[in-house]
């Protein structure tokens, strides 16, 4: 599928003008003692630097039209995504590896599938932005799912150990928790997909409309991305949970952190 969107040119001045809205945020924070002025400033500077840098990287990759560079960028995003997400899953022992595997599988499976089904051509112009969205959403879903799993295993360690005492394997003992963790990881995107177009316009659609695309094309591309992301977050959350749940146990099906006696 090729969506033709007319190109628009955005000047530095226009970007600078948008900072007026940031000033409103900073003033509101100061007036109400929300103490966020410094964070707002850091957010503005970091977004400027990070997006400008990735803009140059993307320009380079588009110009080179190299599959190897696309793969390298996606690999970097997967690794950084896993590093970032592990901080949100502190109660999961060695969460990095399950997260890394989850993001890699989610990215490979969804990008592979959209290419195989002919939804997008295998070119950097499609793979880079779609890959970024897939990995970003997968990271959030996996982190939320593992965070919930870690909390539940900690809170329900007595029940888990009682189940182990009946001869259950570690996988069987945490099965009731997997359902809730998976749900936690996916529910945000499912809910936003339900309300899309009613309560908010998703970013891709807004971007395409601003760039002058036909609204029908903008809607169709947005739908494709939402469906791709639904698949990606479910894969990511499920793979992360599958690999992480064994980290709570020893090979002899014992809780590494048993309940207090």
């Amino acid at each position, binding site marked *: 599928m090729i969506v033709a969107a007319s190109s628009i040119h955005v000047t530095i001045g226009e970007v600078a003008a948008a900072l007026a809205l940031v000033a409103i945020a900073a003033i509101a924070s100061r007036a109400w003692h929300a103490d966020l002025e410094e964070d707002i400033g850091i957010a503005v500077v970091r977004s400027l630097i990070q997006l400008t840098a990735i803009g140059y990287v993307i320009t380079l990759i588009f110009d080179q039209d190299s599959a190897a560079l696309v793969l390298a960028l996606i690999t970097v995003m997967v690794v950084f995504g896993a590093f970032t997400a592990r901080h949100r899953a502190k109660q999961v022992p060695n969460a990095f590896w399950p997260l890394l595997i989850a993001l890699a599988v989610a990215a490979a499976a969804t990008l592979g599938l959209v290419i195989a089904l002919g939804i997008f051509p295998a070119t950097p112009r499609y793979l880079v932005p779609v890959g970024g969205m897939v990995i970003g959403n997968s990271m959030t879903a996996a982190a939320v799912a593992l965070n919930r799993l870690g909390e539940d295993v900690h809170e329900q360690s007595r*029940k888990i*150990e009682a*189940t182990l005492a009946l*001869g259950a*394997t570690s996988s069987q003992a945490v099965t009731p928790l997997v359902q809730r963790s998976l749900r936690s990881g996916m529910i945000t995107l499912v809910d936003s997909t339900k309300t899309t177009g009613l309560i908010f316009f998703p970013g891709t659609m807004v971007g395409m409309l601003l760039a002058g695309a036909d609204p029908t094309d903008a809607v169709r591309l947005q739908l494709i991305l939402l469906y791709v992301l639904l698949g990606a977050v479910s894969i990511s959350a499920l793979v992360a949970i599958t690999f992480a749940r064994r980290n709570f146990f020893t090979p002899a*099906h014992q809780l590494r952190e*048993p309940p207090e006696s």
Partner: protein
Amino acid sequence: MLFEIQKVSYSRAGKLVLRDLDARLPVGASSVVGPSGSGKSTLLRLLNRLADPDSGRVVYEGKDVCERDPLELRREVSLVPQLPALIEGTVHDNVAYGPRLAGHSFDARSCLELAGLDPAFEDRDAAKLSVGEQQRVMLARALALEPRVLLLDEPTSALDQAARDAVEATLLGLRARTSISTVVVTHDMEQARRLADYVVRVEGGTVTAQGATEEVLSEEIEPAIATAEDAT
């Protein structure tokens, strides 16, 4: 000898919970007694490999438990924890859980009856039972595994006196009607006296006395209690 615990040490979060502990538990009704935090519940968990010692070994019927498959061991040496921890569903769902995992048949009603619960409880929501009733469901679901040994961790600590008396009567009935050996962990010396023929006293993570109940728990002869070393 049913269990021989040999020079066992166990740490948790950097704190030594059991220290070179030596104990023996014979076939029949035994009790591990001691104050809170003495390590007696931890000792119980080592018997069916819910935890493994840092050093030393636990021998069950002549074989190191670490050489046994932990899942099979837990079906044979079944532990009932201190507080009820039932799965969601009916009483029947809970009693059926263990046997279904093991792939063997069971009779839920007779297990409930053996645990001192009316078999009519079978279809009731487990979450809506009293704590005492839930504790009996915990016992019934352990019995459904047809264990050879039952490990009971403070089985009446969460119960009022009437419920405690009822559970104790159930355990005594179980002893009369089955050949299941029991190891009851309790802080209550009198309960140990009522339920056990053999007592191991644990304090500060080590055994201070062990032997026949009337010898170990008799106040008259307490000064002459054999030490752990003497007993082993």
